[in-house]
């Protein structure tokens, strides 16, 4: 399998405070990798370095090309679709406008996105600010898909949502995984749900990756030690 994303010993700092002390991880074509770890251990910081929002030392390669230091929009154009933490839509635009604004030629278009999330079709003329949290999350995922990414990065996609809505979103992510060839890097805390889609897991602790392997190999003992669950 060809590697889509590979991080080699990434270090990054917020001003004088170093946050990442050497994170390595790989995502292959069509694979779903769970990035796990307790709060403040560097999951979102890792995502920021991948998306070019935070400068990093080390080697970040996307589809074989080094992408460190590239501006965010170039990385996104290469095929990294980010679904940011906290459902950040363009609140002043309608659902349809949010999607059209992000669209790039490819297999994903408005029809396919609303096929995955029928609720977005019902709300197409509604302003994003007036959507429910779950709908905003669907919109954020849809928006990332409209850019026709090779790698979808989901940062806490189901955080703070009602259980029913969470299930809806997990079902959609599962469908994405099974029906398309898109690679997925997913940050989440729910082991049970991650088990539905993740092939492998990488656990970060204090800015370093401390465990990685097949998701099935992530047993009670590892989870207790690194995740405290």
């Amino acid at each position: 399998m060809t590697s889509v994303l590979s991080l080699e010993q990434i270090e990054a700092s917020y001003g004088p405070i170093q946050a990442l002390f050497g994170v390595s991880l790989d995502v292959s074509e069509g694979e779903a990798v769970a990035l796990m770890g307790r709060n403040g251990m560097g999951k979102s910081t890792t995502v920021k370095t991948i998306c070019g929002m935070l400068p990093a030392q080390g080697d970040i390669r996307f589809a074989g090309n080094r992408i460190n230091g590239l501006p965010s929009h170039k990385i996104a154009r290469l095929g990294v679709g980010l679904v940011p933490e906290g459902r950040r839509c363009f609140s002043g635009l309608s659902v349809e406008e949010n999607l059209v604004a992000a669209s790039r030629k490819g297999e994903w278009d408005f029809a396919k996105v609303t096929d995955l999330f029928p609720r977005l079709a019902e709300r197409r003329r509604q302003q994003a600010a007036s959507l429910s949290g779950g709908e905003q999350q669907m919109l954020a995922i849809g928006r990332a898909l409209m850019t026709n990414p090779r790698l979808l990065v989901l940062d806490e996609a189901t955080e703070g949502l009602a259980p029913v809505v969470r299930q809806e979103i997990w079902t959609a992510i599962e469908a994405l995984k099974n029906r398309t060839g898109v690679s997925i890097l997913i940050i989440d805390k729910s082991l049970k749900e991650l088990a539905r889609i993740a092939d492998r897991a990488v656990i970060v602790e204090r800015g370093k990756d401390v465990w990685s392997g097949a998701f099935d190999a992530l047993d009670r003992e590892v989870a207790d030690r690194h995740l405290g669950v």
Partner: protein
Amino acid sequence: MTRENGLNMLIVAGLVLVPLWAFFADEPFTITLATRAVILAMAAVGLNIALGLGGLISLGHAVFFGLGGYAMGILAYHAQTYTPFVEWPFVIEGTKSMPIIWLVAVVMSSLAAFVIGLLSLRTSGAYFIMITLAFGQMFFFFSISWSAYGGEDGVSIYLRNGFPGLNTLAPIQFYGLCFGLLMLVLLFASLLARSPFGLALNAARQSEQRVQAVGMMPFRLRLAAFVISGAITGLAGALFADLNRFVSPAMFSWQMSGEIMILVILGGVGRLYGPVVGAIVYVMLEHVLGDLSDYWHIYLGVLLLLVVLFVKGGIIGAVSGRRTAHG
């Protein structure tokens, strides 16, 4: 149909009927006022693309208005004095043809907007305002010292320039021309706002980072918007100079930039017809209050203050009641 659409149609009806009435009632001055309003509206529609859609607070749009004006002034001056504009390496004659003048005005103001945008869009907020203001002042002082074209006194043109098939000296015909152009510009602006480019520009105003995350570069979006915006204001400048048959450095002044911005804010920032309403109200106030007092700007200031403080979305927002500016 929303209330805003209804209001817009009412405005268009007014812009058709009032000058027609003035034509049959033999009130040419009213037609001239309407022409002035329509041209200023076009300048403000241009600014509204940068300001309303892109969130770019440009205090230098007089540059484009003035360039349009001088494009007309210089070309027509050479045509009326029968002197070539350029002799070497090839001869360029002046012209009295409006379409050519418009083209020159649009090209010149787009180029200026491109260069100014390239430099000033690296900044934002107060710095952007200051840099655009500084460019405006540069053009202003340059035009004052450019004695070949009248310096401070400007250039007078004896006869209005021509348009194939029309007698532009007849007020109603020149008005029709300006009104037609304004409608075209409004159509273009509304299509632009709904296009993926317009939506992305709107999105970039709301969040730069989110736009980058979907693979677009806010700088390029804004630069393109700034150029389109400048081109439209430049076209309006050429018409304005033709209306007055006169162009002077006043068209480059920062007061002019401020005036165009007032039109947008008064009518409603980001509303398609905001600049049109702003211009109509402005010209009416200028006429009515100008009769009462030389210091009529005081009343304008009070009105602007009230609009900014109490009605979000300008006059259109106050009437149509939709609070969020859109398109």
